[in-house]
């Protein structure tokens, strides 16, 4: 099996393995991408970086990100801005990084200049007062270069801007066509069809192959599915909040899955673990509900095993004839810390990284980072049949499916500063659900109650809704 995989605590963005074998390709890719922008005209629009003036003198920026291979972007930046050196540091994915970042902010030193933070965790850092409002350094002028709702995620109050959007994770159904053909399955367009196919596959394979994995330890995965069903979880009204983790929209989704779990039609393996990749790579799981960065991650984590067998289809819907809806899982922005000595240079790097053509295109084809840059999304260069994630999906235009999904995401979605707790507490309730100790309703009610209790004891004025 693929024992080169070392698990990560949480990996909303690509990269489970070091990308050293790709290095020559990466460098070559960058060179190729730079050439056209110098010569012939492409439609790719980039901000006028000269308006984002960095501090003078030699500068070294410390950057924390868990996107494996992002260090390849540093030389390009250094070439364009010779006074600034960039040191990219992978201190762990998701919560592993956040815990270090929280500590550094509390300590007042030891943190980076720029750090990657997912949208759902951003408010827990905004309340520490440790992040720079980069609109002070001209970030507002580049707003029009990014997908509006991702910009909104970086700017919850619509005024202060706490980061530049790096990527988003609209959801779709990634399925293994070989397994689907083998068992005569059809690609489900509704959840009802989805459940029928799950049953059909479980019976035909004698329970050995599951349609998908119900991800038991990634709250944002479930939230993405609830999001696609019209759920919102948090709302800030002035100084107070409401939280609705057990809304009817959430419950409909979890009820549906609880039934499939009970009948053993779906697997319940924690994502981003050797166990999961082994199951997928050896054909025990026929499909996976993945965010836009998912196919790229999977291609990399499986070391291109089963490459070419996969296809992406739109997320199943709750009813036919309704407007198409999807949800979002993950997506990050790059923030600037107040303890940075060079907040202007850090702002410049954070915007350049996510708006410049070189890194944006290469991050998709090498690591599956689905761009938040509008020009990046529109770029035909995303569709390269001989490169992942398209190559992993037999040359399919994967970016197009996800771009359509992106348009179907409810953009009015807020997070809360106590989300780190909410995120972990989900695992507790789902473990009880899977063990049969709780119903879906009980699990969601407990999730809501635990999270309310935590937020209240931490001084938030929050009510359940």
């Amino acid at each position, binding site marked *: 099996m693929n024992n080169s995989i070392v698990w990560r605590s949480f990996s909303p963005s690509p990269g489970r393995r070091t990308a050293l074998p790709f290095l020559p390709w990466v460098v070559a890719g960058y060179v190729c991408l730079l050439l056209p922008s110098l010569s012939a005209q492409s439609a790719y629009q980039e901000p006028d970086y000269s308006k984002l003036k960095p501090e003078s003198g030699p500068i070294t920026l410390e950057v924390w990100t868990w996107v494996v291979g992002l260090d390849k972007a540093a030389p390009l930046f250094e070439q364009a801005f010779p006074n600034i050196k960039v040191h990219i540091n992978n201190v762990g994915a998701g919560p592993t990084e956040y815990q270090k970042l929280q500590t550094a902010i509390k300590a007042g030193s030891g943190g980076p200049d720029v750090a990657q933070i997912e949208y759902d965790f951003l408010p827990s850092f905004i*309340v520490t007062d440790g992040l720079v409002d980069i609109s002070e350094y001209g970030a507002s002028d580049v707003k029009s270069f990014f997908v509006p709702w991702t910009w909104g995620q970086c700017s919850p109050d619509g005024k202060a801007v706490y980061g530049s959007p790096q990527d988003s994770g609209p959801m779709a159904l990634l399925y293994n066509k070989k397994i689907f053909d083998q068992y005569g399955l059809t690609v489900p367009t509704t959840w009802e069809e989805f459940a029928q196919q799950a049953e059909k596959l479980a019976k035909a394979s004698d329970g050995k192959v599951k349609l998908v994995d119900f991800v038991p330890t990634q709250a944002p995965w479930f939230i993405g599915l609830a999001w696609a069903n019209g759920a919102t979880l948090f709302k800030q009204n002035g*100084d107070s909040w409401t939280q609705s983790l057990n809304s009817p929209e959430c419950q409909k989704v979890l009820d549906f899955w609880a039934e499939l779990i009970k009948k053993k039609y779906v697997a319940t393996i924690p994502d981003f673990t050797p166990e999961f990749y*082994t199951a997928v790579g050896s054909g025990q799981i026929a499909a996976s509900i993945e965010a836009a960065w998912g196919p790229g991650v999977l291609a990399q984590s499986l070391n291109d095993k089963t490459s070419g067998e996969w296809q992406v289809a739109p997320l199943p819907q709750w009813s036919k004839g309704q407007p198409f809806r999807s949800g979002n899982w993950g997506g990050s922005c790059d923030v600037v810390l107040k303890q940075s000595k060079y907040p202007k240079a850090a702002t410049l790097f954070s915007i350049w990284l996510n708006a410049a053509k070189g890194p944006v295109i290469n991050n998709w084809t090498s690591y599956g980072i689905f761009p938040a840059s509008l020009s990046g999304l529109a770029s035909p260069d995303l569709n390269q049949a001989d490169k992942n994630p398209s190559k992993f999906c037999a040359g399919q235009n994967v970016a197009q499916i996800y771009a359509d999904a992106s348009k179907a995401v409810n953009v009015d979605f807020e997070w809360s500063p106590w989300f780190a707790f909410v995120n972990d507490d989900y695992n507790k309730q789902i*473990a009880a659900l899977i063990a049969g100790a709780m119903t879906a309703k009980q699990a969601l009610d407990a999730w809501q109650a635990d999270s309310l209790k935590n937020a209240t004891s*931490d001084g938030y004025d929050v009510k359940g809704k």
Partner: protein
Amino acid sequence: MRRYRKTAYLFLTPFLAVFIAFYLAPVCYALYLSLFIRKRVGIGPPKDVFGGLANYIRAVQDTDFLIGLKNMFVFGVVQVPIMLGLAILLALLLHQSRGFFMKVCRTAYFMPYGIPTAIGAMVWGYLYAPNLSPFNQILRAFHQGTIDFLSPAIVLFSIANIVTWTWTGYNMITLFAALQNIPQDLYEAARVDGAKTWDIVRRIQIPLLLPTLRLLFIFSVIGTSQLFTEAFVLRPLGYLADNITPNLYVYLTAARDANYSYAGALAILLALLIFVISGPFLRRIASR
């Protein structure tokens, strides 16, 4: 006499300086932090206001924390005797045997201790993964049901197994060294009196190992209270409760929830508890 005392302090200075800077000072800071509670007004950084013992009162009513302490006691009661029992057994066996094989065994038993805790826990993480686990593959080969070593009901004991694997060798070596120190004439005298092997073990070796055992016991108890790494490393592989060990709970309160003052209070309480438990044993060792 005074002069000697000065000299003693001079030699102690390097230790004391580091001890105060990196041990006592942080403890005092945690104590100071623990007296504050957070007040929030709107979105923005919370204000720390003096709360007296509010955090401590919250802690003793915090069922999650209390369950964490219960886990710690269950762990200690089950794991420490198993580990020390195994260590005694192995030390006695090694003491009996001679030659190359003994040396190989000694090294092999001791080796896990040389592996960094995090690495050891990762390796065990693979061994525990339900479908990848060789234990489960063996069970399947005999048509038995498989075990989910990472399931909430079992995982505490899976962690205990890792700790036993790591530390039995260390304890064994310490006991083995103590056995080497038992004077040969005691054995000879026993043999002359007609003592069998089992009598020697029971009446000579075990009693003379007691001081060492007591020390190892106290180290093990303190080690139990500090359990963190194994749980932290296994956590991403499945659901491990926040309070599977009290230390993990304290860590998450601080680093995840950014509630440093409450985490400070929890840490101080935990330290006091360990002090109360281990104090009498330490005093007995010191009085010898």
